[in-house]
């Protein structure tokens, strides 16, 4: 009671001074402890460091700590996280390796082209061209780029294999193998040791082989190529008595007439030819525009890009060329051009335009015959070129070099005879696959049974290695040393960029070990030393270098190439009687002509195990994962087949069953088949893909080595599913005919039209479209791309570059069949006109990075957004996978991960631990259920921006090159900043020929297409 009274009294007392707020009764009672405690903001202990062990046993915080820890433990314990072991930093860091920064090393590819290999933290991840290389000038073909996949191929042989009883291979050691083989070789006696190789392009390798021949006198080198210039060179020799057909100045030719020569595809050095050809396709220099006539049996890359195209079966082309020779007045025989035109119902008007052009452009017109055509055509073409002054277009600054001439037919026949008579002690397949490549009727495979020691040096199992006693794994070119001499004027070097991944050896080092006679003489730098010595002793002295050898050598390795002085080239003069008394044989038109061509993608079959190349759509037909018999609709009707029906081709008893594909623009009665498919042993990916048309080859030439006249072609039972990356549409359907043109997707004109009215393309343009949304102002860099359709040849190199840069998975044939290929960049191919005489338009298609992207506003979770520098971005982590963005994309460039494709394809072949080394660490590897698409190589933009910041300057458009741009052999792709008024891109973007795709959807794309100009005559033939 008393207390209460006191309280009240105190309160009333205080009231007079100021309002007294109290937080607790204790405060009210002025407890000194409380007074002390209230000075601190936090309760005692709250601000101490957090140690669960010090907490009282059942405190809330301890409970939460334990709960969190146990949840984390449970999550970690149940997750599939692979312990990759400790990450150990370098004790002594290699000088050149900076984590996160790529190193580039100059080297050489299998085909001799100069490359730069991008490595990250010691692993090669991408191949680009070496811009110093005189031939390929910074660009490389799809095959060279995709070779990186072969490096990380889990199907590579990992250890030396020896065949034991029961025919099974067992792993063994190099030492045992070397011992046994050296013994076998030494005991060869008078018998032959046959070394079978493909074309040798390395002087040092040639020296090794020479040395081997000295040590083992019985040894002989046989070399082959499935496709080569032998016919062309032989014809040249007959005409000019000099060894090699010259290189052509494609950039200076005004009129090019190609006779079944796919010089922009597989015939010759495609990269160089394309670059030079495209110089004559520059819309900024109309006077240099060239005109391409193509006369061919099947639609090729060259045919697609021609201004005039004449379909003609290969065997009839001699008659046509003779007719032309006579018509031009260089008469050699009695063939009448008009008769030829009538006989094959050729377009007379086109041919007369051709003749006109040739007459008017003497010295600037050239005929070029394909390498598969028979010698007689080459002779006629050489003769005609001489007459029309095309010799001025033969290059004298450089020529091809052949270190060891390819073995001819008689060499092979002798080898087979020796083998059959057991006069061959050992056969060494020196990185070659003769069982697959040599004509079956040569009987190599059977003859091999008579050879006691068969050795295959190879990276992956192949048809020849499975017949061998020893299969010895060799280094991939990226693990190997070497030098290359393919041209006069320079050497190039090959250096390893990664230590051998498996227990493999350099193929030359294997021979060196054998020729030393002592297995212990091998060491890892055996061939490196050998190569260096070879250069020091033989090449360095010929190059008048001011540097000492060591400096010279490191400089050479750095550059990848060494310029050398070679003898100037002289072509000599033609034997003008060469055509005398040559009368073309009458072509019998009742038989089908079988024309065998090299595959655009898998080469002669050595890239069959490469998923990237198998999945790369054929540049013309867009078929993936297969080869086929291409023929015209008329021919198909004659046989009674439709697409995907099987036919049997019989050439003098050599039979092949394969599916047909009706190729618009194919000549009638001509069946074209690409070789390189149907491999029986080509690893996980390449085995049994397509059909082995090598079986149609014969040791006895048909019309030529690669062209035969079929005994019969007939329909057989069954169908086969050919899979295309682009649907085929009927030509005769009114709705679909010329649809790409009608829709304004493909807009083209002629050079004449453009000269007359530079703005002809935009004549019919409609009013400007307005937007519902306010337009965003791009103040800084704004990225954009321009694609010059005059220069795009449709080769597909950019697709492989994109895939390599952006970690794009291989999905397999079954998924391509469903329309689920993952390529971020594709090349759309449209036919217009008639199915017989189609006009082809190519158009690379990738994300257009629209300013008003239809994909962006339909994504429910904002997983696709727009960046302030104009990129349409994809946030993988946020993506739920509704696919609405893809549906709403008018260009259909978005790609959805319907599966974890790496896991889905070939039982997880891409999930192999080795395979993951190939990935670009700057690009996320996307998994199942996520949408993806072209990013304009945002990782490269980010890198360039970082560099600009480091250097304290602003980012420029020219700092960034996209992967596709880097790879394009004709520089058809331009990338840069469209806000930079001076940039090349802006010039293209504002070009009169520039147009945007599907402008009517008001998506405002940032990819400009430069309309293709066809260099046809004003009145179209």
């Amino acid at each position: 009671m008393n207390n209460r009274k006191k309280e009240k009294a105190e309160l009333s007392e205080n009231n007079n001074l100021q309002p007294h707020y109290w937080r607790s009764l204790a405060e009210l009672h002025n407890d000194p402890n409380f007074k002390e405690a209230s000075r601190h903001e936090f309760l005692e202990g709250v601000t101490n460091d957090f140690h669960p062990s010090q907490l009282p046993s059942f405190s809330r915080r301890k409970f939460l700590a334990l709960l969190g820890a146990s949840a984390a433990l449970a999550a970690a314990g149940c997750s599939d996280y692979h312990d990759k072991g400790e990450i150990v930093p370098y004790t002594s860091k290699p000088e050149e390796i900076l984590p996160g920064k790529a190193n580039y090393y100059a080297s050489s590819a299998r085909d001799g082209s100069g490359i730069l290999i991008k490595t990250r933290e010691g692993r090669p991840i991408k191949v680009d061209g070496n811009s110093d290389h005189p031939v390929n000038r910074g660009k490389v073909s799809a095959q060279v780029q995709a070779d990186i996949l072969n490096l990380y191929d889990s199907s590579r042989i990992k250890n030396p294999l020896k065949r034991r009883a029961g025919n099974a291979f067992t792993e063994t050691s190099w030492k045992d193998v070397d011992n046994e083989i050296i013994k076998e070789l030494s005991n060869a006696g008078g018998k032959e040791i046959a070394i079978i190789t493909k074309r040798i392009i390395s002087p040092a390798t040639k020296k090794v082989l020479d040395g081997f021949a000295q040590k083992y006198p019985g040894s002989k080198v046989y070399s082959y190529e499935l496709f080569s210039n032998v016919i062309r060179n032989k014809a040249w020799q007959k005409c000019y008595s000099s060894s090699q057909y010259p290189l052509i100045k494609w950039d200076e030719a005004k009129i090019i007439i190609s006779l079944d020569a796919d010089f922009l595809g597989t015939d010759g050095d495609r990269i160089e030819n394309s670059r030079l050809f495209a110089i004559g396709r520059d819309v900024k220099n109309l006077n240099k525009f060239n005109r391409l006539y193509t006369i061919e049996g099947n639609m090729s890359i060259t045919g697609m890009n021609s201004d005039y195209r004449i379909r003609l079966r290969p065997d009839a082309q001699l008659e046509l060329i003779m007719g032309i020779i006579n018509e031009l007045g260089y008469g050699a025989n009695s063939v009448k051009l008009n008769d030829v035109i009538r006989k094959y119902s050729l377009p007379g008007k086109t041919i007369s335009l051709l003749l006109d052009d040739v007459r008017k452009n003497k010295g600037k017109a050239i005929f070029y015959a394909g390498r598969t055509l028979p010698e007689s055509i080459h002779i006629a073409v050489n003769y005609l070129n001489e007459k029309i002054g095309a010799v001025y277009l033969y290059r004298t600054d450089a020529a091809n070099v052949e270190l060891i001439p390819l073995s001819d037919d008689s060499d092979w026949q002798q080898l087979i005879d020796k083998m059959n008579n057991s006069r061959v002690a050992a056969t060494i397949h020196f990185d070659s696959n003769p069982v697959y490549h040599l004509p079956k009727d040569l009987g190599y495979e059977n003859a091999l049974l008579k050879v006691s020691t068969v050795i295959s040096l190879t990276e992956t199992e192949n048809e020849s290695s499975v017949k061998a006693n020893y299969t010895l794994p060799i280094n991939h070119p990226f693990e190997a040393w070497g030098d290359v001499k393919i041209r006069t004027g320079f050497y190039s070097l090959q250096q390893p960029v990664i230590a051998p991944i498996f227990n493999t050896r350099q193929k030359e080092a294997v021979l060196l070990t054998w020729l030393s006679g002592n297995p212990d003489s091998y060491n890892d730098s055996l061939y490196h030393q050998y190569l260096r010595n070879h250069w020091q002793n033989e090449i360095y002295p010929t190059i008048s270098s001011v540097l000492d050898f060591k400096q010279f050598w490191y400089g050479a390795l750095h550059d990848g190439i060494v310029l050398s002085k070679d003898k100037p080239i002289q072509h000599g003069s033609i034997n003008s009687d060469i055509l005398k008394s040559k009368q073309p044989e009458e072509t019998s038109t009742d038989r089908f002509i079988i024309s065998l061509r090299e595959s655009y993608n898998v080469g002669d079959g050595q890239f069959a195990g490469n998923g990237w190349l198998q999945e790369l759509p054929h540049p013309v037909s867009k078929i993936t994962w297969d080869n086929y018999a291409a023929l015209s609709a008329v021919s198909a009707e004659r046989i009674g087949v439709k697409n995907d029906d099987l036919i049997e081709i019989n050439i003098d008893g050599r039979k092949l069953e394969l599916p047909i594909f009706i190729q618009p623009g194919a000549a009638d009665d001509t069946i074209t088949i690409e070789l390189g498919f149907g491999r029986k042993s080509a690893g996980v990916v390449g085995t049994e893909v397509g059909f082995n048309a090598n079986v149609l080859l014969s040791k006895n030439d048909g019309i030529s080595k690669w062209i035969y006249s079929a005994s019969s072609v007939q329909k057989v039972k069954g169908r086969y599913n050919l899979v295309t990356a682009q649907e085929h549409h009927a030509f005769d359907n009114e709705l679909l005919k010329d649809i790409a043109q009608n829709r304004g997707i493909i807009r083209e004109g002629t050079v004449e039209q453009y000269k007359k009215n530079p703005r002809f393309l935009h004549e019919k343009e409609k009013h400007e479209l307005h937007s519902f949304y306010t337009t965003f102002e791009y103040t800084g860099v704004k990225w954009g791309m321009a694609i010059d359709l005059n220069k795009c040849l449709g080769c597909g190199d950019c697709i492989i570059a994109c895939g390599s840069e952006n970690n794009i998975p291989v999905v397999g044939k079954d998924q391509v069949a469903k329309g689920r290929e993952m390529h971020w960049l594709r090349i759309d191919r449209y036919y217009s006109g008639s199915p017989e005489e189609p006009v082809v338009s190519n158009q690379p298609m990738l994300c257009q990075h629209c300013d008003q992207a239809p994909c962006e506003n339909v994504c429910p979770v904002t997983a696709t957004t727009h960046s302030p520098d104009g990129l349409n971005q994809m946030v993988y982590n946020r993506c739920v996978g509704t696919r609405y963005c893809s549906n709403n994309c008018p260009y259909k460039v978005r790609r959805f991960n319907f599966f974890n494709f790496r896991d889905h394809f070939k039982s997880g072949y891409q999930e192999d631990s080795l395979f993951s080394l190939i990935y670009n660490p700057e690009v996320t590897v996307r998994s199942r259920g996520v949408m993806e698409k072209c990013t304009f190589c945002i990782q490269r933009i980010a890198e360039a921006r970082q560099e600009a910041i480091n250097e304290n300057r602003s980012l420029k458009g020219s700092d960034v090159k996209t992967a596709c741009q880097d790879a394009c052999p004709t520089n058809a792709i331009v990338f840069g900043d469209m806000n930079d008024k001076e940039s090349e891109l802006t010039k293209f973007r504002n070009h009169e020929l520039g147009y945007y795709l599907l402008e009517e959807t008001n998506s405002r794309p940032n990819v400009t297409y430069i309309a293709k100009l066809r260099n046809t005559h004003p009145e179209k033939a």
Partner: protein
Amino acid sequence: MKIDYKIEPPVVEGRLSLSQIEELVAKPLETRPDKKFFIAIGISGTALLIGIICVAITLHYGIGMWGNNQPVGWGFGIVNFVFWVGIGHAGTLISAILFLLRQKWRTGIARFAEAMTIFAVICAGLFPILHTGRPWLGGYLFPYPNQHGLWINFTSPLIWDVFAVSTYFTVSLVFWYIGLIPDFASLRERTASKVKKIIYSIFSLGWRHSNRNWLHYEKAYLLLAGFATPLVLSVHTIVSFDFAVSIMPGWHTTIFPPYFVAGAIFSGFAMVVTVLIFVRKIFNLEHIITLNHFDKMNKVIMATGMMVGYAYAMEFFIAWYSGNPFEQFVIINRAFGPYAWAYWIMVTCNVVFPQLFWIKKFRRSIPVMLAIAILVNVGMWFERFVITVTSLHRDYLPSSWGYFTPTLYDIGILVGSFGLFFTLVILFTKTLPVVSISEVKAVAGGAQPSHHGGNH
């Protein structure tokens, strides 16, 4: 069978007394399930199991198990979604709109139709989640505050969908439950089983059939009916926006909202007719769900069918009138392209067959209406297929055109969704009164005081 439409026919036939009505409706709940029940649930359960297996495989491997591809990003998943949402439309229309319009005949079928709405929306609701590439991230579609500062995209119709369908489901469920309360109370009074009594007691929320109860009930019911009515129109309008808001020719069409709503009512009524034919027979409800009911529903089917037919015609007209070549191509391609078969199935089932209902004999013939109702359901499923797939498979760039072929998993999941729907329907018939006892009693003869006494 001469019917004078000038006189409104009695809603309940056979002069059933109020107690008889209650008896009749409650009977299935008070008897043990018979053989027929087990056969029925066996069939629907098998279908459901097939669906579950297919869904499990899809979840394990990915959407790649389905036929979807580039360019057809949406296939059966979205087709089924729109189909089931459509089925769900009859229920709310009958219970809410017809209630507001004082259509007494709705009482016999409202409960069942509402239940079907709920089940159909359950079926529908599964698909948007299942069809995504990463269904486990479905939560991203909801606007929840998070430290990443991530937010959903309110311009995407898929987000509108999430709200529209979930609202529709919630309101339908509440509406259905409110209507069930007096019946739960009646059942509570009837049952002798202790367990059932507890359950019914809980769900009847202490209903005492008092005047106050009824007063509140009527008011709540009316308000909910008013609330549900706009939803009937909005849900399918928003579903149609999934297509109409895009820029794809064949999707980007202003006619879609009314066209979709009409189609939804059309298919919903057809499904109600299909199922009620069996329920009425099996549970001897011929007097409560009479031929007059079917007559009226068939008229609705015919009317909405013609609206849908009008929309089909209008698409052709607008494609021509707009002068948009892409639009024109899509429409012609629909009718004459690779998917012409689907288009003509749709037109025949949705426009041609319902015309038979002009004839009164057919409107009142059980076999005829069963056949037509099933055909309408087939046709309406194909309508969604035609809209979704044929527009996508050939759009702007001919280079990216493709063809969609469903896989076994697509078909399995479609079968499974029917399995789920019918399993729920069958379970419903044995657990809850399929007809609203209280409402039917209210419209039975002699239930309401009348100045001319008794039955009208």
